[in-house]
């Protein structure tokens, strides 16, 4: 007999069916969790946490509030229409004395120097003499360095006491805050990031287009050849994966440089004059050629996986219905490969805008990507906040592309091989 709908289903011993089912699947759930836990842990430690750390660093602003805590406190309520009073100067002296003893004024001076050039030397010079200062501190400080007599300096300290800052993001897009809080462009000679972002995007787009142009016919061939031949071709496609990235990139240097294989051959057969050798490396050409080669498999594989699922009977049906071969391709085959094109395109584009080694090696000055500037700020200028901000912008761009792609095509359509 069927049970009444109000009473929940139970198993033979009276335990509710849902409880019983949960109990039954718990073991397998625990097992599944145990199986993924090492990788999960690794990903959290090595991937998720660094990303959040980076995002945090791009807005984090601890230097002023920790190193100049007394000064910040003394400046509370200051309107900024005249120089602050003696207590603020005294607090600054105290802060600098403590910082000089602890030898941790470096970060503070760099941080303030990003906002107002000259601040590093001002703080360093003041800190060296701060122990010998006598009150009134106001005159003594201004005596050491005129900067302390400027209202803007104090406004800056007051502003940067905030725990979070936008200035790294503004710097990443070549903007800065004035003392009055307006966002303005940096001087022309300091503008680099926006141009680099655009260059990264359009060169990545060119690389994506080239991989599509070169990869589409190969993927077509790959998916329509008999298995015996397509396996061999697939190995050739995957071969670059088995070679070191560094080796592949340096090989392009050997081929493309002005005393390289290609130029030598061109000179030998008389296409170009010996003194007019083509400059194909350490510029945009070099980056595009090398990266197109390196990223080609990432275009071919998604295309192949989509083309493989298109039965040859579609084209045959279209032909038998009276379509000329090209029309059949345009109307039937091509639209069906769009998920593959989109998947390959998004993959290559995302990989490309984040690429570092190849542009660094073969890009020269003009073929460099924004990633090379992230590395520069990480390793040379040590402005980690700015590096984090640039990297975060790249991350947001990738996420936006991903969301658009997911909306238009659907990520579940992407298969590799």
């Amino acid at each position, binding site marked *: 007999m069927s049970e009444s709908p109000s009473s929940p289903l139970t198993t033979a011993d009276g335990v509710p069916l849902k409880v019983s089912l949960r109990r039954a699947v718990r073991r397998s759930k625990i097992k599944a969790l145990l199986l993924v836990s090492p990788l999960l842990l690794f990903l959290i430690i090595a991937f998720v946490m660094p990303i959040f750390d980076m995002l945090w660093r791009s807005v984090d602003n601890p230097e002023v509030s920790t190193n100049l805590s007394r000064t910040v406190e003394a400046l509370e309520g200051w309107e900024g229409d005249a120089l602050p009073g003696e207590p603020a100067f005294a607090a600054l002296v105290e802060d600098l004395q403590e910082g000089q003893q602890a030898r941790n004024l470096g970060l503070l001076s760099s941080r303030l120097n990003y906002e107002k050039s000259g601040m590093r030397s001002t703080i360093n010079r003041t800190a060296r003499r701060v122990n010998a200062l006598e009150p009134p501190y106001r005159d003594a400080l201004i005596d050491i360095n005129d900067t302390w007599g400027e209202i803007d300096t104090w406004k800056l300290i007051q502003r940067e006491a905030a725990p979070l800052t936008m200035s790294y993001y503004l710097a990443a897009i070549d903007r800065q805050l004035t003392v009055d809080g307006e966002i303005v462009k940096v001087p022309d000679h300091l503008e680099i990031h926006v141009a680099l972002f655009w260059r990264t995007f359009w060169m990545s787009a060119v690389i994506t287009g080239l991989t599509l142009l070169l990869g589409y016919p190969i993927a077509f061939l790959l998916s329509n050849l008999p298995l015996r031949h397509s396996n061999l071709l697939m190995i050739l496609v995957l071969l670059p994966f088995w070679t070191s990235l560094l080796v592949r990139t340096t090989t392009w240097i050997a081929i493309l440089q002005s005393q390289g294989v290609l130029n030598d051959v061109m000179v030998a057969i008389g296409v170009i004059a010996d003194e007019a050798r083509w400059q194909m490396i350490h510029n945009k050409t070099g980056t595009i050629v090398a990266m197109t080669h390196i990223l080609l498999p990432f275009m071919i594989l998604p295309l192949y996986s989509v083309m493989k699922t298109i039965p040859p*009977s579609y084209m*045959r*049906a*279209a032909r*038998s*219905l*009276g379509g*000329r071969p090209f029309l*059949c391709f345009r109307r039937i085959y091509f639209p069906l490969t769009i998920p593959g094109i989109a998947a390959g395109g998004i993959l290559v584009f995302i990989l490309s805008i984040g690429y570092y080694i190849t542009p660094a090696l073969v890009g020269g000055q003009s073929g460099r990507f924004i990633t090379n500037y992230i590395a520069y700020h990480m390793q040379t200028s040590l402005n980690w906040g700015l590096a984090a901000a640039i990297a975060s912008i790249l991350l947001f761009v990738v996420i936006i592309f991903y969301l658009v792609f997911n909306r238009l095509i659907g990520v579940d359509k992407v298969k590799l091989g």
Partner: protein
Amino acid sequence: MNDSLEVEADVRETKDQGECFARFVNVQKSYDGVELVVKGFNLDIQQGEFVTLLGPSGSGKTTCLMMMAGFETPTHGEILLKGEQISGLPPHKRGIGMVFQNYALFPHMTVAENLAFPLEVRHLSKDETRKKVDRALAMVRLEEFGDRRPAQLSGGQQQRVALARALVFEPELVLMDEPLGALDKNLREEMQYEIKRIHASLGVTMIYVTHDQTEALTMSDRIAVFNDGIVQQLATPETLYEEPENAFVAYFIGENNRLQGEVVEHIGDDCQVRLDSGDIVLAKAVAAGGVGARTTLSLRPERVSILLDESLSFDNCFEGHVKEVIYLGDHLRTRLAVCGNDEFILKTPNAKGHPNLRPGQTIKVGWSSKDCRALDA
């Protein structure tokens, strides 16, 4: 050399006759240059005919169809359509409708767009296209489904759309490559009648490929039975079933009891055959060799009678031991051991007064020599 001369002679003959709609003349096909997949295929098809190419997989029947459609090139021989050589013509210029095994409906187009495709490539006006699409949808009774995508249709509906698409541009010849293979049994039967009905109402010529003999028997005007790259027999369904010309056809079409033996004597159209069990059977000599030659006797299970009393008499009467009785509703299938053959099948209709057989029983069975055909070994 000789072959090509023959072909030319054949072609001339066709043109003189001028009545055959489609012709295969001595067509051969090889994919690897080592083996022939189709070995000398000849077939004349009249206008409006429904011809089925029937055979097991790998027998070359689909290859023949693909050669007619233009997707394969004959290695040798000629294919003619309305007296014209079409071997050099690309598929899209042949104007032949085709229904594929998995329908090959374009998944990114709606049903109506699928049907409009052949009309668009022929540059028909929008009005005319819509009219023809509507008519084609009505023909397969899917008027309501024009806006659906193929994936939203059931197998049978997809099949009907494929059929409508192959017919919408009014081709004179329609090829079908196992179009019902993916459907379940009931739907398949329904579609068989539907295709038959459309064929009759449009008068279009159809060439149909299948490995299902029931399908072939139900639908065709004529059937070409393929095996091993050659046509074993080309005949109407009735002739094919009643008068198979060789052991393969007898075995492939319908159910069939096979008895192996040696020809002892020819008596007019008949011959006496000594079976391996020692029994002597009188059979119709269809393709049996001379005295002493090996032969296979073919006997339909429904042509064997149970002899309950002495009133019925046949020229072949033997004892049979009942091994197994299977109840199939409308008929009973009894497996007997007769003349040393343990797989001897007997079909009796489940009619009033049918004998109630039990395994282990011994009965007398008999058949007429007319129904027992002595074929090649």
